[in-house]
């Protein structure tokens, strides 16, 4: 039973992090890995700055 609880908690956590966008850097690394670039990926701090700069130029609507 505890194993199921742990899995459940992990799933909820994974889902919530995804919805919030907390996993963006990990997904960027995975994307970088997959796409086989020869330059090294951005560092974590650098990535989040780039992400914010991107949001600055591409605002996303929030609905009523």
């Amino acid at each position, binding site marked *: 039973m505890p194993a199921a609880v742990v899995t459940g908690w*992990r799933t909820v*956590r*994974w*889902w*919530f*992090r*995804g*919805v*919030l*966008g*907390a*996993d*963006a*850097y*990990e*997904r*960027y*690394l*995975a*994307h*970088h890995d*997959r*796409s*086989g*670039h020869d330059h090294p990926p951005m560092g*974590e*701090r650098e*990535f*989040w*700055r*780039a*992400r*914010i700069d*991107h*949001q*600055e*130029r*591409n*605002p*996303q*609507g*929030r*609905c*009523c």
Partner: protein
Amino acid sequence: MTTTSGGAGGATAPSDQELPTAVEDEVLEQERRRWTPAKIAIWAGIAVLGGLGWVMIALIRGETVNAIWFVFAAVATYLIAYRFYSTYIERKLLKPDDRRATPAEHSENGQDYLPTDRRVLYGHHFAAIAGAGPLVGPVLAAQMGYLPGTIWIIVGVVLAGAVQDYLVLFFSMRRGGRSLGQMARDELGTVGGAAAVIATLAIMIILIAVLALVVVQALGESPWGVFSVAMTIPIALFMGFYLRYLRPGKVGEVSAIGVALLLLAIIAGGWISESGLAETFTLSRTTLAWCIVIYGVVAAVLPVWMLLAPRDYLSTFMKIGTVVLLAVAVVVVRPEVATPAISEFAGRSDGPVVPGPLFPFLFVTIACGALSGFHALISSGTTPKLLEKERQARFIGYGGMLMESFVAIMALVAAISIDRGIYFAMNAPTALTGGTVETAAAFVNQLGLTGVNVAPDQIAGAATMVGEQSIVSRTGGAPTLALGLSQILSQFLGGAALASFWYHFAIMFEALFILTAVDAGTRVARFMLQDAVGTFVPRFRDTSWRTGAWIGTVVMVGGWGGILIMGVTDPLGGINTLFPLFGIANQLLAAIALAVCLAIVARRGTVQYLWIVLVPLVAVAVITVTASLYKIFSPVPGVGYWAQHFAYRDAIAAGRTSMGAARNPAQMEAVVRNTFIQGSLSIVFLVLTLIVIAAATVAALRSIRAGGLPGHEDEPVPSRRYAPSGLIPTPAEKELEKRWLASAGAPSRGGGH
């Protein structure tokens, strides 16, 4: 708009290519048609439960009806519509093809183009489309009784709202995630496209203005509310600095801290309201309106990381959290509803909350939750760039909107579970209630509503219960909803002692959602404006040009800020005059989105299924055009803006210094001015929308005559990944997913799990 494509050329995984990237259509079709006894039993059970729910709320006329029946009727209808109608649309009209790569796959850039797990995307999309809208509209519409609103929310979403979201999402996905404005230009030509863009901008201004007005109405003269909502600004700033400098990327951690601080701010608000500081935080509605205008300018020009991004994290966290909390509480508490199914005001047009006859005004008062044009801006642009597979558009687009509709039903349940006398005392404008508990009670009791007899100390008691000085004429829907929620939630957690906490918790999350929409909406509108002006003055296209950004921001904030101030100072009461315009504007945007879909579907040549688009389009066009015509031409001053305008002008000309709610010459002038602006806006919206619908009809007819025309879809790119389409994979999908997992690992889950 183009992005550097990182994934398109590089993501070759030779071993994966042997695996199919889609389950064959025939296999899915076979699965769909195979009715096992278990499946039959489940769907029969859903149908029976839903039918029972509908019978209980629509036909049985007891003293009270239990709220659980609303949940059964709604959820069963959603499931049936999702299982049968949305798959029908998928099979006959849209025909998604999982062998084609989505924009997220072929243009993947690690930022906004990123294949996202469908379950995560569902939450993400829901957090983007849902907000205060579905929480407020049903509350105001409750003056007509619960049944008309319930039917419109549920039937409307099935046939209109969810269809719009799904179609726009799908078509935008097939066009690299193009925005509604760009699709309008492609499909409708220059005039139709330009009208669509101008209409969208004008509509966004009125939407933001009325949302801001809802916040002002909820916070006016409420030190508790003002303090706790004001605290969201330093909390967001703290989160912003934390993420930028202390621990970059720890989004989950900082959001948890933020939510804890938010709860603390709500509790601290209670201390403030009982301390000597209460005076400081008691602000008039006009002051608050100016605060929000200034906040709007500052938020739109500050760097995103400081305020907007962290506030968005908080808002997302709260959206998901409160919806779950609300659903659990309604199911656990199952409040008894004493409001009649169809109230006295359903057959009249002088309702004190929102004036006008049931048709069309109920259908514009409840916009979000049944059909919301604003969603078309999210379903084009943001979400299509995250879709992993084409077939998932149904789950995200249609399914996401069903969830918003469910939120609207729960808001309705909360609003109708409070005492009806108190409901009207809260929602009638000060012009009618007089603002004190005695006059409000007298006003409500003379309405002649069956079973309604409210005593002044009952109204005062309700205010004390939730820690407010007064609840009289707290229009706008948010305070009523908060009162209903506090009653339900305090029965679920904490008892009467926590009623005031839950009330301000509800006010807080509504204000948070609205302020997020105001921030983001102002910014999006500014970019749209710069893009539109850029057609003539190219320099404006450069969104990093500071002068252009300032001009754009000031114009947009000036637009909604002006309407907000007008609404706050309106002698007739801002919500009842402006909310219909909000609903009309939102539905007109839906009409524009559906008109664009009509042109696209006709171009694809699938004429025999054009009715799927025509049903919602014709319905929303009839509703909004009728409502606009009422607002423009109705001779009843309470309903028609111009009738009111001329009545007051004539009165001033005749030398009168007071009339109705306007008590002095300045207020008389204000009514004349406000009704002029409102009436003019009604005309502008109507004309622009009719141009768009006409342009779409012409484009559609041309396509039909030609038997379909080449579309504007992107060239198909073969997909190289696989994921199931719905929440629960079918056996064949599960099988294929397993093979992919074995060979490549979970594609969209990213790293740490």
